[in-house]
């Protein structure tokens, strides 16, 4: 392994949006999560909690409620008064429908999944029938017309807050006719729905109870509060062996600093999200059978995909925000220091360009060419390509106006290594090859997915990852059905398909010299596939047999980027949120159990620790949390960090809480 000079980049001001609501689909084992900016994310819980799909937001859309129907239909409703159903393959809204009741605050689906109810601003509840391809208005339940069977008045809070109005933020209805309510006075109350009487009051917080969720078998309720706590109630019998049960407050989780706006309970975990933008999956240890990936507390803060692209030669970084792109030139230094020393910056990093998107739709993907002359980005509705002229200090940008007609929207964009071609993974699961030059942009070819008899539905899955080889001969694509296809760019035809592994690819890259494809999956597995030989390499087989060190598995966030060291071709650099590691393919693997020599810190690289040099795996977790790691030329390693404290400083102040000892 080598020693690197590191650009420690901290000027990517990426700010995740707060979580507004979420819904868990136990049949599909997927969580749908809506953020304040209108974007929807889908996490696959059976696949290492991988962020499978992201539906980009829209400025006009604000989501207040989200709901699954069946395994694969997702609805949201929001303050613009519209109900949206999403196309989960193309990752865009399928249709929108106005409920005609003003802003919609809440939505629920009945257990038979035949009807939807939407609670509207005007006080009415709109009932919609769910049809196979759409939803249809059925009834309007108006509060004036006396439909209500029971009328329950929630009293105000404890003494001291009595003059404040009490708002019921959330209700849940249990099958035994118990109503659970959470209100702004910090109470979780249980009511008898038949009689309309109060059963029990639990004072949970000094502030609001914002969210409630009932587990599937109705033996547990979780409530999220403004203090950032999640409180669990369990249905227990006071005497062991007795059939009489009561709701008892049991656990309190405190993983959030701000409002917990959404909370839900899966079979093994409590999932909560809130204004502090992180999704917390807190395992219920009593439900987890064995020590596995399920028994670890997880916090998802950043997207499981790369938001940074890097132009290596001119040392440019392209940062993708939902509403703009930023192009930065890295700074530099003249001094040469000792290992471990931080060098003074003599040339400051420079923001070259801030490119605001057009329209309401948020940017879903972007890329910059290796030479730094081309920038492309895509929204749900359009793709834009820009040419960049950079002469010393003058920078000019021109939009390529005439794009081929086939380009409408992309899920992934990638330039070829020589910057002559742009690969566009379209929403129709095809890959367009566009040749770009200063004069014109021309559609060269469209790779259609190879229809597979064994996977009848697999053919239509859109591609979410692209990788092109350095010699310009190979292009690989991975789609959401875990299929990885290899295309020959010279012959413009499908070359082969990598054997399907049952976990989504999270990152892939083609080795510049050997043309081996390296793929990492969401479950932390790594494969190397020889493209020319159409088979897994020996190293890959050995890796599968012996495994990497378990330190690699510790964090559990997926690898989001893979790159190679041009100086030492056997070295692979890959990173996830918590660390980056260098795997030397020429060195023997050390297996799962071996004594691990950690850290890339220069202190440890003294001669006394010779044996560690023989390890294939080197880990560095000095930089956290990582958004991007890439190798520039001349041994420069660029590391993009986004310190959590910077995110917290941009959040609004949390509710005041008295802390003991302060």
């Amino acid at each position, binding site marked *: 392994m080598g020693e690197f000079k590191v650009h420690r980049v901290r000027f990517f001001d990426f700010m995740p949006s707060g979580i507004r609501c979420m819904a868990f689909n136990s049949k599909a084992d997927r969580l749908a999560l809506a953020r304040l900016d209108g974007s929807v994310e889908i996490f696959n819980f059976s696949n290492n909690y991988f962020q499978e799909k992201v539906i980009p937001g829209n400025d006009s859309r604000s989501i207040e409620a989200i709901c699954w129907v069946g395994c694969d239909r997702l609805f949201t409703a929001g303050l613009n008064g519209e109900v949206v159903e999403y196309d989960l393959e193309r990752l865009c809204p399928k249709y929108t429908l106005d409920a005609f009741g003003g802003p919609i605050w809440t939505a629920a689906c009945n257990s038979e999944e035949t009807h939807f109810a939407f609670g509207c601003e005007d006080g009415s509840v709109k009932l919609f029938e769910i049809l196979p391809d759409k939803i249809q208005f059925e009834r309007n339940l108006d509060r004036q017309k006396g439909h209500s069977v029971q009328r329950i008045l929630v009293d105000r809070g404890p003494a001291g807050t009595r003059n404040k109005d009490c708002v019921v933020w959330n209700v849940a209805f249990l099958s035994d006719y118990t109503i659970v309510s959470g209100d702004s006075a910090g109470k979780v109350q249980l009511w008898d729905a038949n009689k309309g009487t109060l059963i029990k009051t639990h004072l949970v917080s000094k502030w609001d109870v914002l969210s409630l969720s009932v587990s599937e078998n109705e033996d547990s309720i979780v409530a999220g509060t403004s203090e950032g706590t999640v409180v669990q109630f369990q249905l227990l019998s*006071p005497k062991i062996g007795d059939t009489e049960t009561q709701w008892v407050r049991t656990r309190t989780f405190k993983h959030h600093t701000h409002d917990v706006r959404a909370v839900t309970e899966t079979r093994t975990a409590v999932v909560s999200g809130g204004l502090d933008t992180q999704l917390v999956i807190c395992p219920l240890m009593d439900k987890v059978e064995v020590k596995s990936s399920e028994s670890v507390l997880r916090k998802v803060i950043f997207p499981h995909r790369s938001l940074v692209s890097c132009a290596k030669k001119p040392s440019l970084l392209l940062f993708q925000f939902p509403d703009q792109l930023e192009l930065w030139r890295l700074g530099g230094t003249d001094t040469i220091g000792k290992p471990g020393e931080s060098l003074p910056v003599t040339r400051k990093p420079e923001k070259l360009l801030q490119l605001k998107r057009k329209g309401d739709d948020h940017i879903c993907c972007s890329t910059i060419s290796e030479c730094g002359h081309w920038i492309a980005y895509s929204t749900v509705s359009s793709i834009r390509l820009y040419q960049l002229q950079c002469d010393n200090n003058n920078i000019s940008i021109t939009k390529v106006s005439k794009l081929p007609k086939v380009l409408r929207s992309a899920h992934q964009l990638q330039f070829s290594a020589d910057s002559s071609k742009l690969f566009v993974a379209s929403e129709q699961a095809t890959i367009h090859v566009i040749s770009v030059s200063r004069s014109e942009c021309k559609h060269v070819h469209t790779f259609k997915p190879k229809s597979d008899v064994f996977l009848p539905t697999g053919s239509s899955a859109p591609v979410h990852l692209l990788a092109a080889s350095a010699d310009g001969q190979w292009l690989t694509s991975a789609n959401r059905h875990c299929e990885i296809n290899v295309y020959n760019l010279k012959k413009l035809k499908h070359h082969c398909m990598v054997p399907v592994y049952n976990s989504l690819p999270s990152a892939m890259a083609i080795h510049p010299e050997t043309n081996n494809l390296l793929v990492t999956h969401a479950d932390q597995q790594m494969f190397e596939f020889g493209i020319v030989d159409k088979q897994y390499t020996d190293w890959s087989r050995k890796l599968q047999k012996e495994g990497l060190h378990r330190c690699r598995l510790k964090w559990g966030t997926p690898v989001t980027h893979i790159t190679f060291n041009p100086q030492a071709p056997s070295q692979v650099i890959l990173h996830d949120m918590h660390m980056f590691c260098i795997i030397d393919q020429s060195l023997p693997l050390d297996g799962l159990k071996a004594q691990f020599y950690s850290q890339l810190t220069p202190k440890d690289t003294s001669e006394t620790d010779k044996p560690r040099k023989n390890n294939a795996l080197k880990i560095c977790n000095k930089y956290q949390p990582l958004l991007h790691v890439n190798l520039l030329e001349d041994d420069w390693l660029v590391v993009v960090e986004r310190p959590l404290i910077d995110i917290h400083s941009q959040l609004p102040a949390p509710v005041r809480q008295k802390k003991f000892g302060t």
Partner: protein
Amino acid sequence: MVEQGEIRVVRCGGSTINYRKAIFTLDSKYLLCTSGDMVKVYSTATEECVHVLQGHTNLVTGIALNPTNHLQVYSCSMDGTIKLWDFTDNILIKTFTVGYKLLALYTSKAHEGCVFVIIPKENDEALDSFQLVAVRLPKSSDQEVAATELSFVLNDVSQLPKCTSYGREGEFVASVKGLHLTVYFFRNQKTYRLSLNATPKKGANNIFTCVACHPKEDCIATGHEDGKIRLWRNFNRKKEYTHSTHHWHHSAVNDLSFTPEGTNLLSGGIESVLVQWRYGEETKKDFLPRLGAAIAHISTSPEGSLYCTSHSDNKITIIQSNLRVSAVIQGLVKGDNIKTDLMIDPRTKALVLNGKPGHLQFYSLQHDKQLYNLDIVQQEYINQSGLHQFDVVKAAFDAQGSWLATVEERKEKLADLEIQLKIWVYKDEMQSFVLNTTITSPHEDHITALCFCNTNETTMLVTTGRDGRFKAWVLGDDSDIYRESVCWSCDFVGTYHNLLATNCCFSEDGSLLAVGFEQIITIWNPNTWDLVCTFCQPPGKIKDLCFGRLSCSKYLLGTTTNSFLCCWNLLTCTLEWSVGLNVILLQLDPLSENVAAFSCAAENSDLFVFRPNEPRPVYLQKNICQGSVQRAVFTPRDVPEENCSESSQWLNRSQLYFLTRDMDLMTFSTKTEEDRLTSSSKQLLIEENVPVTPFYLLLGKHRQAKLDAENGTLAAQVQLPQGSVAIKELLQTPAHVLPSATFLCTMFVNSLLISKDGKSEVPEEAEEEMESEKEEDETSDQEMDSQHKVKPEYFVEELVPKLSKKEERDLKRVRKTDYSWLCPFYGKLP
């Protein structure tokens, strides 16, 4: 020469009452608590000690009410026995010998004929492994029974009783140790072990400290080192148990207790705040703050009206269920360290020593009761670790007890030493000491000793300091136009070659002052402040210094660090004698020439009592206690003893008390003394059974007269009131069916009077003679001496009373008075 065994070292009062949880009786009238080798029964209403259950020969480690008879209590002890007592009458009913050291005792209604005890594994405490076992108590009418049938319940439990608790209806037992909670179900004999994480995260410390089980539901509350309280439910599953966490205490939870109905959970810790959590609504809490000292144990009365907390300062607080303190039972406060000497307040004869932080306590040894606390520092004590606060380090009384001098110190690590010398005067009108003078920084370094001049007109106080000076303070006039007052001021500062002044002592008549400067003793004349002479015994430094008394006042005694006890003759200024003895404490009897010297060798302390005029001990006793003696004091007796034997004569006028290393207050008691104590306690018992009523007072007089008569001649004999039919009727008929008091009174008084129908004293006498004749017939073979002894018993059965004229007159007067006021008392008759 010295007879062993006649003088015993005994624990004498001042023992801890906070060692184990106190328990309430079923009617909440009495509170039982362990106290050394005894169990004390306190009245919850009056705070008085009603009975002392004596009988164990080692530390009592647990008490529990007999679940089948609530008037009986079990106690277990380190001596390996379980004793069953009737605590209302102070009767030992049974003794069960188990043969193991017993560390805790539990009873359960569901397990009849069985008690649970914690014993050390293989009866060896050093193994640090303890077991919970069930002891089957054999049903036998014998007083002493061997209980050998032990059945094992739980292995590896904590030896502390608060770490084990019995659940609802005795169905399970929960025990905590380290990071594990073990629950054992008796019905299916299954054990569940629930564990917590050891990783200290965010200052968490999950180690269990105590456990309590809900009395009605299956819920276990546990306390933890970091102050958290966890409520466990569903603990009969391997995995799906659940617990909720509540956090108020900032340091370890010392004890937990559910109220009998389980509606509230009480917790306490070092914060000295009793926290009452509502079960089911744990966010609502009630607090009882400022309880004085850290809470060690909490218990509740069976009907739930009273709580009681035991505190680390040897105190029991009885608290009503509305969180009002109703009574405080204060034992002798023993901190980790007694900085002041043991002293005797000359006025109250009370023992005076450090009490609560910043206080001096006055403890009556006769009544085994704290008299009062004197706040010396007069600053709020803040309970926080690492905070240095003023504490009383030295105190001294003058001979009359009208002046008290105290020294308080505060030493912060980086700051200068702060010392205050306070002199207090006793005010008769306030019956307490009042601050007279405060001297800030009397010395520039620690004060090593202080003493008053022991003459009748006390006007001088001498202090010695590590700054090499000794200072004399005298009482002077401080009057001004507003008031008349006196205050103390410095009169003389003496030094000797810049050596550290370590001790000071006045001779008995106050004519000489001895000040020790490291190796050298200097003798000063306090009137002229001339250095009279010096003594030294190099190389040892002077540890203790005292003048002899009474006939031995010409001697000066000193102990040195190189293990010498020296006696100098002040007249000849020569060393009279010296003995090689490692004396750690030298204590003078103020009423005799005797001097007690404690020495320590090989982890045991020895006592030597001697007179300064001869280097031969009057009495010596080896191995009086483990470790070195900390402090000792002679206290004058109220009534001098009459010990004839030579070895115990030194205890005739004074009693010697000492503090052991473990802060136990011990004393030496002679055989005659013990005999007298036991006899008096028995006598007391009979008297206590007679209720104190106007009748009793009146009849008491009769009995006194009767006793007089017994002692003297064969004068008037009076029967006991129990014999009267009228009284019997009065006492046994329920109050609500009794006729009016006025009617009864007439009848009652009539019954006491001699019938007026013409009988005079003559036939009485004739009758008596007749009786005595009869008696003589019966006991004709007995000697005449025994007659007097038999007679009273004989007369008890006799119904005819015999009264003197004066008593008759009294009774007549009684008869005329109006007794309607008695009505309300009828309800109170037993």
